[in-house]
């Protein structure tokens, strides 16, 4: 069943960037050591349940905390624990467990898994999903009877599974769903349906991949509880906030989570992980990571063990001699990866290598630049047919910081209809008051698209973020939506 979409305002289509990952998958070697942070994705840090020197097997739980909202973490290799200590990971200090691998590739399966999952009791399935760590995917987790999300399975009204690829670089959905994975994906969705009996399912895919949409909708042809649809890959179409409104037409509670209105947003890998957990008993010990951006010799996908050091993953793939910056998951919102000894955890989906553009160009502002992406169709590149030519991707600021000229580019691209430059002016002049609330500062989903298009090179997204923080400092909280919310108390605890 292919359903209609509701459009969202603004947004931006990133076209033809060089170094888009191709539909090619390789399997990375098992690294000598892995590091597993005990806080991954949403939820609380879990407690280590192993000690120094313990022997562990791949798929064995090494950290869990059944009391707070969290998911267990697993060792992804067979080996021995060599270190348990604090590390600085993505801006937070967290405990991490380092394991020395013995190089073997087998893994320990979960008890109670069954290919005939239909015969399992719901509680058993929930336990499998929880123990495998699959429940830790997404921003809200998968609700089970095991404290794995802020809401309980009965409260889920909608599940959105997305593979829209609206960013310039993203894991290819057609790669993830090729071969056996498509029936696995369908099975996984049906398992989820059993766990979340009141939920309607929606699958949103890139509207430009017609064959993929046809395949997937074929897999669900006789299920009226699930619709498959194409969404225009216009950034930020795969944000929870946008998906909820574009796919379901429901209002998103600004500043809160989709789960608060009973919606669970998952990606394709999460559904595949559910299938693996319930049918094969395989915990989340592997991730498919896209190696994107012009900094790689070849842009492909690589299947790695969770916790592999970044250096291990990109080894031998990087162009030599180039000054590169590595980014995690996204060019627009991702963190810079400056310490390559850090691991790739189970929320990592892409490693992007972009060129540091710290070189000057003669008459840069006059160059027609068909290879440079521009919202305003940079200097005749539109008229020269520059749309088709692959765009360069580098970190050069391409211009100096200037005062805002209210050109309204940021307003035109804003997917949630706030006026970024207005908010920026207020925050910049320290006018932190109710006016900011009135202008909807908390509606901002921090997609950073306004900063991307700003010709004055103002970091609008950052200013708005600062403004939110300052408002909270002043004791002015985000206004709560008028409709009924779910799981708000639990949510307060995790914050």
């Amino acid at each position, binding site marked *: 069943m292919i359903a209609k979409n509701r459009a969202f305002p603004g947004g931006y289509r990133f076209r033809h960037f060089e170094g888009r990952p191709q539909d090619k998958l390789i399997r990375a070697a098992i690294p000598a050591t892995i590091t597993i942070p005990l806080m991954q994705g949403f939820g609380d840090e879990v407690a280590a349940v192993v000690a120094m020197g313990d022997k562990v097997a791949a798929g064995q739980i090494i950290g869990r905390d059944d009391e707070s909202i969290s998911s267990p973490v697993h060792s992804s290799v067979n080996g021995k624990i060599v270190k348990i200590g604090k590390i600085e990971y993505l801006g937070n200090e967290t405990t991490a467990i380092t394991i020395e691998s013995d190089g073997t590739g087998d893994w320990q399966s979960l008890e109670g898994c069954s290919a005939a999952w239909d015969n399992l009791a719901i509680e058993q399935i929930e336990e499998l999903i929880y123990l495998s760590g699959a429940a830790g995917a997404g921003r809200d987790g998968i609700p089970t009877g095991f404290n794995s999300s802020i809401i309980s399975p009965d409260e889920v009204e909608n599940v959105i599974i997305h593979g829209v690829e609206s960013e*310039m670089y993203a894991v290819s959905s057609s790669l993830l769903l090729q071969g056996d994975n498509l029936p696995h994906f369908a099975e996984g969705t049906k398992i989820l349906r059993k766990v979340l009996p009141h939920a309607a399912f929606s699958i949103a895919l890139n509207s430009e991949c017609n064959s993929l949409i046809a395949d997937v909708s074929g897999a669900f042809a006789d299920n009226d509880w699930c619709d498959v649809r194409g969404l225009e890959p216009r950034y930020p179409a795969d944000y929870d906030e946008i998906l909820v409104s574009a796919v379901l037409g429901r209002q998103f509670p600004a500043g809160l989570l989709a789960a608060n209105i009973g919606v669970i947003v998952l990606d394709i890998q999460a559904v595949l992980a559910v299938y693996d957990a319930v049918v094969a008993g395989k915990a989340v010990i592997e991730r498919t990571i896209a190696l994107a951006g012009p900094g790689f010799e070849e842009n492909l996908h690589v299947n790695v063990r969770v916790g592999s050091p970044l250096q291990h993953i990109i080894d031998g793939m990087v162009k030599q001699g180039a000054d590169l910056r590595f980014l995690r998951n996204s060019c627009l919102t991702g963190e810079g990866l400056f310490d390559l000894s850090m691991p790739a955890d189970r929320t990592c989906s892409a490693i992007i290598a972009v060129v540091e553009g*710290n070189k000057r160009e003669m008459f840069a*502002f006059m160059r027609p630049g068909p290879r440079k992406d521009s919202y305003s169709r940079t200097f005749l590149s*539109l008229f020269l047919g520059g749309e088709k030519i692959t765009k360069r991707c580098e970190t050069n600021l391409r*211009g100096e910081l200037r005062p805002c*000229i209210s050109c309204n580019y940021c307003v035109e691209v804003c997917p949630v209809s706030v006026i970024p430059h207005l908010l920026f002016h207020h925050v910049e002049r320290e006018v932190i008051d109710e006016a900011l609330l009135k202008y909807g500062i908390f509606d901002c989903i921090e997609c950073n698209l306004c900063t991307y298009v700003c010709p004055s090179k103002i970091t609008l*997204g950052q200013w708005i973020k600062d403004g939110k923080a300052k408002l909270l400092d002043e004791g*002015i909280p985000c206004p709560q939506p008028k409709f009924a919310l779910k799981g708000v108390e639990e949510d307060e605890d995790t914050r």
Partner: protein
Amino acid sequence: MKAIRSLLDRLYEAPALQRYKPIIGAADAILYGTDETTRGAPHVVDNIDIKRYMSFVILALLPAVLASVCFFGFRVIAIIMVSYMAGGAVEVAFAIIRKHDIHEGFLITGLIFPLVLPPTTPLWVVAVGVVFGTMFGKEMFGGTGRNIFNPALVGRLFITIAFPAIMTMNWQKPFVSGPEAITSATPLTTYKSTAKASKVNPDVVEFEKDEANKQVLFTSASAVKRCTQNGDSRFDGVKIYCVGEPAYNKAGKHKRIEDDNLVRLFSYGDLLVGKEPGSMGETCRIVIVLGGIFLMLARVSNWRIPVSYIGTVFVLALVGHRFLPHDIAPPVFQMLTGGLMFGAMFMATDPITSPFTKAGKYCFGISCGVLTVLIRSFTGYVEGVMFSIVIMNAFTPLIDQIVLMFKYRPVKT
């Protein structure tokens, strides 16, 4: 290349030149672009900056500049040079004293300003105007992006009011310059004086032959046709003025009207190409419209203001001309005269000084149109475009505030 690079680097180091860093920095940025990189997310940014943004406008203005050089001779270039030098000096002085970068906005002010001047403007008046406009219209508010009024128009208004004798008398005919230059009134002025002088207009009132005042203003081509087809003897020996192309010529001449008695004031073709007197850059309307459309396609200017502006003028003139033909000129003539096209395409669209809300843009355009027709028709000034745009610049913050007030309801916390 390397020589320039090393020269710039040496200039940066020179202790005597520390004060003038803005100038060196500006030259450097224009020549070489930036080597700065993004700090934090987003790591990749769009390839547009203010320089590029502003150069679009310059590019769109170039045809108009070329046309004015063709029409009015090389003096145009001298005027543009004076404008750039005098205004640039103010810009640089403020940048040095206030220790900020030289901003690109001046490149546009310095070009638009001379284009709205009469071609015979004395050079010192050009300098006074551009200095005043840059200083009072822009720098006192903090420079590009912070100004409230369009600096070029503030300068133009100032010299219009300050030197009425210089600014409103001399309108040079295109294609003749130098000693044998002919000056005449602009089309709008001509229309006004002719319309005022002719007491009768058979287009609307019952025609009564007035022996003392034997002239009639036929305001449109179709009017000529309509009133002469019947073989009306009342037109014998009456001098007839007509705006635009008289359609009856094709339909066959009317016997009673001799060619001598028909004065064709302006043809729309000439107005479109720019063969009538006017400000330097605003006469060749066809290239102005093309430039404006280019800017809209390149997303530098927004279509809302020009469309609502010109549309309002058209509708108002259409309605107004039926009832007050002596005051309000016919619609097509209104659109093709004065600075309407230039103002609507290049000055009303300035994002800094026009509302940023959508509803505000329509409001701005419509109000500009109303004011333009009002000022053109009923006041001592025939050219209403610059006044109406500056007046609406003043209203811009108020319009935005009111629109935002309706758009966002106050939130209770």
